[in-house]
């Protein structure tokens, strides 16, 4: 994996010193809170309901074990002993004191972690396929390009005060595991017929109160021209994006008000005038980054592991774990192993310091020292020998990390909601917990099959409710928490926005309503259909009738 060199580390030190200076100026009253706010936000520091929250960047979701252990240490030392992994593959510490923030940033910088640009109206932490470098279906390691973007976008002099936040995601596999069409810019790397790497560039995606899927503005961009093309998009947006209304300031509004053809034309016109050679990385630098992501050495393994097969035959629970959480690796005899942070009764995405330590130990012993964060708020061990999976499973089980529910009804995405967040209208975590409890029987969950429930505590949509097969949105109805259901959303290659089912309902009604939706699906399901497929085939009507007939 990419390791920061001296120059990268000096950037972090300088950033940390700058923030220490700015925080001191704020504390002495030299600058106002209004002036300080964007500065602390660009260093990941939010003021929430009960305390400061620090959002630490995990570029392209890749963590070393030293980094994960340091996060565990910071959570123990400065917080309440846990961290929350987010839908942007960042980690949030929810109980931070402002006076500790500079020390925490120093401690993180020692292992190459930082909170740079995890908030604010700037280019945010770049995300990528969590299976990068491990999956057989990619044409290149997308992190090579994501790291190039990380460097280009860090402390960018021109693009640090954009109209609004700006998020970029990269995938190089046909199966989109990074939800790229929900991003301001989504980049899909492919090989052209003559073998050249080329990006499909999509722009204008985003969730929030006006959700849009990103639209293609260029089918084929030679990969080596990526940064100059991004420069052109950002310049058009920085100059033309709306600044008079925060709700209309994202690039999605610009793209859709101009029309995608006109937006693309403006980008091309700008790009034609950019001195691309000044911006695009030379091949030598791309080669340096690529070398950092070179595949590890994999010991040759038999494609079928007798140990793994025997464990499956002996233990049905392990067999379920193998079905749900273990995925094919590009190297025979290896597996990609998902670690669910969705144990029944737990907060989706939360991991205790002890759990982080366990995962770090397992990664060192069995996964070449690498851990990934998935936007689904789960962790990944990307390079596990099939023969080692039973041993990994046993340790995960002890740490309550062996929940076999990846992509099932209990693998719920939820934002922190009104339990933490100042923006929220309603709580998200207790709703997720109530649903998970209702469907806690793993056999039943597996019989229901793939079903993504996504919960946001407000219209900002951090819980991706627009992209849920079942989306749940918390709304405020005369001071009470209500929840609006929507159906049919997807974040993958078949991305689609969910449609609202009907009037909002109370939190207590939600588990019953989900139950009704599931029963309706099972009654209508045809061979091999996922919940999403059935909804798409039948439309909302049968589901609507079932849910609101019961409610009446």
């Amino acid at each position, binding site marked *: 994996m990419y390791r920061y*060199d001296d120059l990268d*580390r000096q950037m972090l030190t300088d950033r940390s010193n700058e923030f220490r200076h700015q925080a001191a100026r704020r504390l002495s009253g030299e600058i106002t809170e209004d002036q300080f706010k964007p500065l602390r936000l660009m260093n990941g520091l939010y003021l929430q309901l009960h305390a400061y929250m620090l959002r630490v960047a995990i570029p392209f979701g890749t963590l070393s074990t030293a980094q994960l252990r340091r996060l565990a240490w910071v959570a123990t030392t400065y917080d309440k002993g846990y961290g929350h992994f987010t839908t942007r593959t960042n980690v949030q510490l929810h109980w931070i004191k402002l006076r500790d923030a500079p020390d925490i940033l120093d401690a993180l910088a020692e292992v190459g972690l930082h909170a740079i640009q995890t908030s604010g109206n700037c280019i945010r932490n770049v995300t990528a396929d969590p299976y990068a470098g491990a999956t057989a279906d990619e044409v290149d390691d997308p992190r090579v390009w994501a790291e190039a973007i990380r460097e280009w976008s860090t402390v960018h002099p021109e693009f640090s005060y954009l109209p609004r936040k700006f998020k970029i995601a990269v995938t190089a596999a046909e199966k989109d595991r990074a939800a790229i069409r929900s991003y301001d810019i989504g980049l899909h790397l492919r090989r052209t017929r003559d073998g050249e790497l080329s990006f499909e560039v999509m722009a204008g995606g985003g969730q929030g109160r006006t959700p849009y899927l990103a639209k293609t503005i260029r089918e084929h961009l030679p990969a080596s021209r990526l940064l100059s093309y991004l420069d052109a998009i950002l310049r058009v947006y920085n100059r033309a994006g709306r600044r008079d209304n925060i709700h209309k300031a994202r690039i999605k509004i610009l793209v859709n008000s101009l029309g995608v053809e006109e937006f693309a034309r403006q980008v091309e016109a700008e790009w034609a005038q950019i001195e691309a050679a000044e911006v695009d990385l030379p091949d030598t630098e791309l080669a340096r980054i690529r070398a950092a992501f070179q595949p590890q050495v994999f010991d040759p393994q038999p494609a079928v592991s007798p140990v793994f097969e025997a464990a499956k035959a002996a233990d049905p629970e392990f067999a379920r774990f193998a079905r749900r959480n273990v995925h094919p690796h590009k190297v025979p005899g290896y597996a990609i192993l998902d670690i669910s942070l969705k144990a029944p009764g737990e907060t989706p995405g939360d991991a205790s310091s002890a759990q982080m330590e366990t995962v770090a130990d397992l990664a060192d012993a069995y996964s070449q020292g690498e851990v990934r964060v998935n936007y689904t708020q789960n962790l990944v061990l990307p390079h596990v020998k099939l023969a080692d999976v039973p041993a990994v499973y046993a340790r995960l089980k002890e740490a309550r990390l062996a929940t076999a529910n990846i992509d099932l009804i209990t693998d719920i995405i939820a934002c922190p909601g009104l339990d933490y967040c100042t923006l929220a209208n309603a709580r998200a975590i207790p709703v997720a917990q109530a649903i998970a409890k209702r469907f806690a029987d793993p056999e039943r969950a597996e019989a229901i099959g793939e079903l993504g429930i996504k919960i946001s505590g407000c219209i900002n949509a951090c819980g991706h409710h627009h992209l849920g097969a079942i989306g749940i949105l918390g709304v405020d109805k005369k001071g009470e928490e209500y929840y609006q259901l929507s159906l049919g959303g997807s974040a993958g290659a078949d991305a689609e926005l969910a449609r609202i089912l009907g009037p909002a309902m109370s939190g207590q009604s939600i588990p019953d309503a989900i139950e009704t939706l599931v029963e309706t699906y099972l009654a209508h399901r045809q061979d091999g259909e996922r919940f999403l497929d059935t909804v798409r085939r039948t439309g909302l009507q049968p589901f609507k009738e079932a849910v609101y007939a019961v409610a009446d």
Partner: protein
Amino acid sequence: MPSLIKLDAGSDQPRALTVQDAFVFVHDEEPIPAACDIVVTLSRLSSEGDDLLASGRRVGVRLQPSEAVEDLAYDLPRLAVVQLVFAKFRDGRPYSSARVLRERLAYQGEVRAVGDVLREQAMHMVRCGFDAFEPADGSSPEQWVAAAYRYRHVYQRAADEREPIHVERAQIASGLGHNRPDEVGA
């Protein structure tokens, strides 16, 4: 009236000085004062520019964030200063305007930041090609320069002379073998 800070182009080290502002900004409704250097709005420059420039004084223009620097193209060689207004420090449009002025339109005159101009943005401004500043926060030239050059490295080229980190890396690699990554850290 904020003081005017200018980067000292003649110095080897980054340096800035407080200078006397020779220019008077003339609002659209005000008459043009006699015999002094002036800065006018874009609309006044469009309507009266030729007369003003013919009067033997130095003339500059003040652009609002929504006004495009490209509209100045033909007048640029004759303009002594382009003032770019930061209506709010959060409004980042003038950074793009400054870069286009310097890098695309090759403007050599003074590019001055006016309005809500704060020290925290000094580096961004300098890197985008501003060389004169009217800080709204009372920053001294020393404080301004310290903030503008706090980072030892930069990751990208802009309108200043600084080379990005990958160029430094290549130099280190060619001169000193290679820059070994830290195996302990990450």
